[in-house]
Structure formats: C-alpha cells, structure tokens
C-alpha cells in the first residue's frame, strides 16, 4: 500500500498546510468499495462527533481497514460520500485527508528508525525557516503536546531506542502536530503491555476532552467497552448496527460480530502427568548476535498447557525457534520425555514426539504457492506411506489430505487450490491439522490464533484443550493475554529473555501478569494486587 500514497507531483503538494477548521462532525454514508471479486464495503455508514470515541468492531476481513483507508485517502470509494462538517469532501490521496484534519495511527508504525523523534515529526512538515531545518522549534512543539496530552517522550531520542509504546506516542504526536482533529487508531493496543494500554487510554481521554474525535479499530471487546462511546460493528463488509457503548453488552457485540452466539469453552481440570518437555538453562542468540534468551528453565507436563505471556521481542520467538531446531542454542538442554534433543536435527525432534505451529505461518509454516494438498506433506512426504523410492504416491496423499481437511473443517474450494487463496483461519486450521496428524506428544504453538477470525480461533482453542485432555503437553506462546489466561493451566511470563515468574491459573489476573510483563517481580505484582483490593 505504501507505494500508493505520497506521490507528490510538485513541491507545493508535499507540504500540508495546517487544517483551517476543526472537524466537528464527520460522516461516511453508504460507502461501497469493491476490489476485483470482493465487495469489501457494502453500503457502510459511520459518523463521529467532536469529543467522541467511536469504535469500529469486526473480525479480520470484515472491512474495517478498507473503510478507514478510504477516509484517509488511500482508496477512493466506488460510491457513497464522505462529509466533514456537513460539506461533502473527496480525498484523492492521504495528503488531502491530512489537510482536512484527519490523522491515522497505523498498526505498523511509519517511523524512520534511525532518526530522532523530532526529525520524524519534522518529516512531513514545511520548516518554519524555509530550506533550513527548524528542529528546535519542532522539539518545543513536541514538548507542548507531550505536556498537554500526557505523551511522555524525549524529542532527542532515536526511534530505534524507544519501546513500542513510546513509538506509538510519537505517531500520535506526529498526527497532532499536523493539526489532526479526527484520529483513526488501527488496533492501537495490539502491541502494548497492559500498563501501556492504560497509559494510552489516559491519553485518548484527554484528547477527547480537548474536542478531538477518535475512530478506534479493534476486535478486542473489553477495550471497546472500556474506552468508547459508540460502537459500529462490521461483518462481511456490511454494517451490522451501531450501539451506544453504555447500552450494549459483550454478548450482544460478539453475536453481532460473529453472527451467532459463541459456545463457552468447557475447560476441565487438568490431570497433569509426567514431565514431557524439560528446558534448563537455555540460552539463544538473536538475529543481531545478542543473547536474547538468557537462561530459561521450564517444564511442561503431559496433560498441561503452559502459556508463555510477554510483550513481543522478549525472546519468545527465539525460544520457539530454538525448540524447533531452526535456531541454535548456545547453552542449556532440552529434553522430550527424557530424550535429549538440544541440538538434534528437526527429524529427530519430530521422532521424539515434537510438533510445531510456528508464529509466522505464511513464512515458516506453509508455502502459499503450494496447493492445499502439497502443504499437508511439507514434512511427511517421505514417509513410506506416501512414497515409493523417490516417487510420490498421489492417491494416498489425496486421501490423507482430504481426511484432514474434512476433520478440521478447513474451508477450501479443493485440494489443488493454492494455499494463499484460503483465509488466515483456514490456513491455520490446516497447519494445526498437519502438525497433529503426526500424533505428537508435545506441541509448541506460537501465536496460534493471531490474525485468525473468532470462529476459527474458538475452534483452534477447542482443539488445543481436547489435545491437552488427551495427554499432550502444550507450550502456548501468545501475545494475546486473554488467550493465555483462558487456555493455560500455568502461565510463565517472559521478560528480557528470562522467565520472571510462573503463576497457576487460579492466581493469574491481568494486573499481576502485566506487572511481570513489564519487568516487575512477583512480589511487586502481589503488592499491586493487594493495593488495588
């Protein structure tokens, strides 16, 4: 998408003038947007007033981002209109939207990592001194905005030195500095710790108090209920309805999003068996050669789900990769049912009973251009069942693939469909099906439901719990705290490459896990909980 925006023809087009008027009321009416073969928005209407937080709620693929990209000028609607302060407007590119006073905080930040905060903020702006830089002026403006909205950030710091939460603050400052009075926040909490989420919400409330309007894209219900005034729910590109947040309930919103009521997950008491995977003193280097897993000790038992919670980048990915054998451990040992596999090649790990659902499913777990059937056999194509010599046995392969597809309810036009044409949820179900078809004793599941729609997530959760009850040991690594809390029998929190605390399900609450995720100690966590009570 990035290529489409900011292609200015002449210099004067590159410097947005500050918007003349503040947005009192923005309205999108009957927006229709079709892409080849897909009706992404089908007559959607939404409006937001000054001083209001309006949530746009929906599953992945419901059309939330498409709608907001039209408001930000990245796409143009096929029909329908956008009105600002009751005047119809047309945004041909993001610059037009910025000039009208609209800002957007993208999920993936649009910052230059090697530049300072002030330089990043100055980027899209004309200098007050013509061709000479005015970083000192910009720094002052940043200081004022920080003060006003509670956005603590050092203008001199380089972006790469900042935490994710701080980088997000820089994005908000950038938008405010450009004079945005309506700000679109695309899943702003996805990358934050619970404490950072709280800080963000404080800032959002201040912005609203100052008369800004906010459009808050999310699929996390509790946040929507916490922070917004109104909610519009999208499903399959159409708007299902709008509600005042005060007058709705979690259950109603879920039903609007999914189109049916979700069953409650039935979680039986775990009957924990012997140690299945034992990790001791594991150390692993990161991509830049720095030690990123710094002495992890963990044991997962048969019939148990151990959840690893933590803010991304604290070593979870490298830990999972070391267990899968694609990254070398520099010290420590890993045992599966007593068999040492610390530096064993993948085939031996699999033979020892290990299976993996990798974090980046399209990069590590599947091949998008391969067909559904070919993806089922990424690992097992040389099993005697499926080949004779070097020749593949197609009938047997088709039979096996077909049985997995139907058992795991993978929706696909056929076995010879390229995998990339399937939805994220169906791809993940297929990967899970493949990994479980090996009947492993230990499963390492990284972010098993990231970017997966609610229906499929629910299904995947159900499968994981069934497997646990059947005696499998599951190491669940997830950034979704709700998922960790729902599924795990024990929760280990990883911070800075170490496990900083392990809590039983019964003792786990979001607050104390949050303290651990931010690097606090278990004692601190208990203290905070006590103070709150």
């Amino acid at each position: 998408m990035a290529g489409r925006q900011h292609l200015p023809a002449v210099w004067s087009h590159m410097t947005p003038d500050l918007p003349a008027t503040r947005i009192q009321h923005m309205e999108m009416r009957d927006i229709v947007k079709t892409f080849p073969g897909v009706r992404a928005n089908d007559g959607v209407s939404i409006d937001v007033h000054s001083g209001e937080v309006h949530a746009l709620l929906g599953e992945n693929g419901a059309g939330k981002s498409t709608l907001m990209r039209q408001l930000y000028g990245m796409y143009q609607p096929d029909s329908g209109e956008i009105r600002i302060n009751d005047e119809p407007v047309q945004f041909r590119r993001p610059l037009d939207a910025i000039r009208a006073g609209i800002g957007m905080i993208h999920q993936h930040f649009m910052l230059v990592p090697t530049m300072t905060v002030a330089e990043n903020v100055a980027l899209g702006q004309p200098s007050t001194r013509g061709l000479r830089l005015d970083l000192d002026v910009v720094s002052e403006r940043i200081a004022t905005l920080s003060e006003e909205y509670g956005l603590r950030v050092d203008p001199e710091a380089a972006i790469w030195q900042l935490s994710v939460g701080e980088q997000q603050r820089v994005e908000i400052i950038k938008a405010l500095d450009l004079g945005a009075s309506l700000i679109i926040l695309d899943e702003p909490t996805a990358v934050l710790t619970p404490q950072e989420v709280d800080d963000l919400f404080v800032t959002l409330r201040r912005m609203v108090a100052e008369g800004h309007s906010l459009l808050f894209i999310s699929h996390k219900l509790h946040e929507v209920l916490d922070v917004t005034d109104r909610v519009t729910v999208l499903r399959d590109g159409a708007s299902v309805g709008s509600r005042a947040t005060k007058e709705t309930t979690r259950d109603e919103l879920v039903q609007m999003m999914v189109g049916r009521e979700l069953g409650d997950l039935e979680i039986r008491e775990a009957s924990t068996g012997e140690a299945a995977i034992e990790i001791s003193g594991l150390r692993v280097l990161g991509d830049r050669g720095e030690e990123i897993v710094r002495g992890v000790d963990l044991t997962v038992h048969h019939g148990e789900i151990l959840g690893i919670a933590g803010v991304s980048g604290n070593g979870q990915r490298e830990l999972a990769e070391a267990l899968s054998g694609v990254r070398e451990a520099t010290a420590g040992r890993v045992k599966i049912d007593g068999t040492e596999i610390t530096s064993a090649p993948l085939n031996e790990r699999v033979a020892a009973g290990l299976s993996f659902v990798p974090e980046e499913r399209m990069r590590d777990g599947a091949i998008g251009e391969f067909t559904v059937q070919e993806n089922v056999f990424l690992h097992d194509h040389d099993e005697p069942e499926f080949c004779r010599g070097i020749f593949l046995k197609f009938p047997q392969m088709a039979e096996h693939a077909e049985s997995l597809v139907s058992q795991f309810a993978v929706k696909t036009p056929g076995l010879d469909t390229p995998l990339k044409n399937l939805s994220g949820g169906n791809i993940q179900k297929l990967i899970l099906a493949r990994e479980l078809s090996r009947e492993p004793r230990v499963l390492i599941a990284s972010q098993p439901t990231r970017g997966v729609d609610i229906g499929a997530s629910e299904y995947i959760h159900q499968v994981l719990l069934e497997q646990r009850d059947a005696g499998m040991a599951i190491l669940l690594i997830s950034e979704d705290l709700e998922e960790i809390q729902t599924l795990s029998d024990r929760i280990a929190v990883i911070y800075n490459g170490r496990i900083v605390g392990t809590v039983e399900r019964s003792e786990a609450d979001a607050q104390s896990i949050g303290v651990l995720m931010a690097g606090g100690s278990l004692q601190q966590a208990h203290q905070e909980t006590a103070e709150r009570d």
Partner: protein
Amino acid sequence: MAYCGCMGDNASVGSKIAISKGVNRHRHDWRELGIRVLVPAAGVIAALLVSALFLILLRANPIAAYAAMVRGAVGSTFGLTQTLVKMTPLLLVGLGICIAFRAKCINIGGRGQMIAGALLTASFALRFGHLPPVVLLPMMIVLGFVGGAVWGFVPGFLKARFAVNEILTTIMMNSIALQLMNMLLQGALMDPAGIEAGTFLAQSARLPDAGRLARIVPRTLLHSGLFIALVMAVVVYVFLWRTTLGYRIRAVGLNPQASRYAGIKVPAYQALSLTLAGGLAGIAGAVEIMGVHYRLLEGFTSGYGFTGIVAALLGWLHPLGLIPASLFFGGLLIGADTMQRAVQVPSALVNAILGLVVLFVSASTVWTQRLIQRFRSQETAHE
C-alpha cells in the same frame, strides 16, 4: 486418530461445506492457459513492431523482412529441420534452467556446462571409438550429463557451503570451461589431420561413426537428439511434480524458511538443482557435437547457454511449456539469419531483435500474473 475426539458439532457442519468441487474448474483452467499463451504472444508481436522501427531506420522493408523470417524458419523442409536442430540444445539447456529456477537458483552457466559435457563426451568417444554403438552412444550421453553436472555442482556446492552467489560462480565457470576447451583443442585434443595438413584448426578429430546420432531427415542436420530432448522434458516434468526430490526443490524455491521448518536441508537441494541443471546442459553439449558437428570445435555452443534461459522464462519455467518456447526461439534464430540475408541488414540487428523479444516477453509475465489473479479472485467471489 488422536485428534478426532474434539470435532463434535463443528466438524459435521464443516465437512459439509469443506470441499465444494468447482463445477467450473475446467473452464477456468482453459481460460488461464489462454492468458498464459496469449499475453506472451502479444509481447512477441509488440517486440516485432518495435523492431520494425529499427528496420525502417535501416531502410529495410519490415514486411519483407518478417516474411523472410517466417519463410526461413518454417517455409521449407530444410528451414523447418534447421529450426528443430536449434530447438534441441535450447530445450535441454532450458530444462536445466527450469530445475535451477524452481529452487530459486539462477544458472548463467549453461555455456560452460555444455562445454564440460561435450569435452568429456568427445574425449571418451575418441579414445573408445571401437565400442559398439549400443554401448558407446548411451555412455556418451551419460558422460555429457556427468561433465555438465560436475560443472554445475561446483557453484552449487559453493552456494550451499559458503553462500557464494551462484550467478557469479556460474559465469566464472563459463570462462574456465571455455579456456580449458581452447587449451585442449590447441593441444591434446587437436585434430591430427589438421596438424598434418598444417591448418591447425581449433577442433578435435572427427567422432567415430559409432558415436554419432542418426540423422532423421536425409540431407539435413536434423538428428535424433531431438527425441532425447523431448524425452528429457517429460522426465523433468515427472521429476519436479511426481517425486520427493522435485517436491523438495520446489518447496525450497518457493519458501526456504518453511522448508527449513519442515526439515528439508535447503542448501543441499539448491546444490542438487544446480547440479542437475548442469547435467542437462551437459547433455545438450554432448548431443550438439554428436548430432550436428561430429567433432568438438571452438564456438559450438553458439549462444544456446543464454538463449536457453530466455526460452525457459517464456515457457513459464515449466518443462512442457518449454517445448513450444524452445521451438519458437529455434525458429527465431533461423528466421533471423534468413532475414538478415534477404534484406541486407547488419547481423547486430538480429541480436537487437532477440533482445527486444526477451524484454517484452519478460515484461508480459507481469500482465499474465495480474490477469490470472483477477480471474481467480472473480472465481472466488462467485463461489
């Protein structure tokens, strides 16, 4: 299996909608094939239109020129057989390029691999010419494969072991093979008859009769190497899509990371793909001297190493698509020769036209992809 217990209601709903066999599948397949053929064809026509401008600048009549081109390539039995003669090494080299490309390895070493294969074949035939044809001919083909494979293995090994860029090494290996052949043709392999006569031509002695491929059409150069090439196309197709090795090569090329996660030794399969690519080019070299020249001589590779790459691209890197693609380029080479003689244009222009065809055809793949994408997404929308 262990995971059946959890399916309950969900699965029964799921399995009903899981596989809806597309009734329209075949129609769409045909349409896709149409796009794949017509768009590159349009690219070729566009290239010829642009080339027409050059012809006009050179005061040649483009219509007469292209007429001569078509006449030269397919207008007579001799032209047609010449086209097929050129097609044979292009197809073999292209097949190797296909395998390498499928593993995301770029093999620029077709020329060197042809030479290495031909060198080994010729040396063997000149030494063991007394063997009966049933033994000698297969041995020569196999040695051609071995020579080329060794030449492909070296860059493959360097890439696998030390991550050395295979584009650079395959080019270097071209020079090494070329100089090695020149050295041998000036020395150990030089035709004794040439030495005796005092001509000192850089060519070997003639291959023994038992080591020559039969001519299919009398008084033409068309030889049975064409059948070897066609059979190899089918073999490569089966290899890539019906065997575990081919499956892994394709997996490695499409997504090395996921392949690694699946326990596939990525570097080993990259090296294998380059080795096989070399082997096929080596067969091309062997077949060329066994069927056309009957001896090893300087310049026998005449650009097949590079044109083979282009043919492979035009054939969508598919062994069977390569058959028409190499036929087309064979015809283009022959037709361009005729055109040059007929309308008296500099021979450099022929290369320029080839270059333009390459440029337009490569660019057309982008459009092919886009159109197919569009049709596919419409398809999904209808379902």
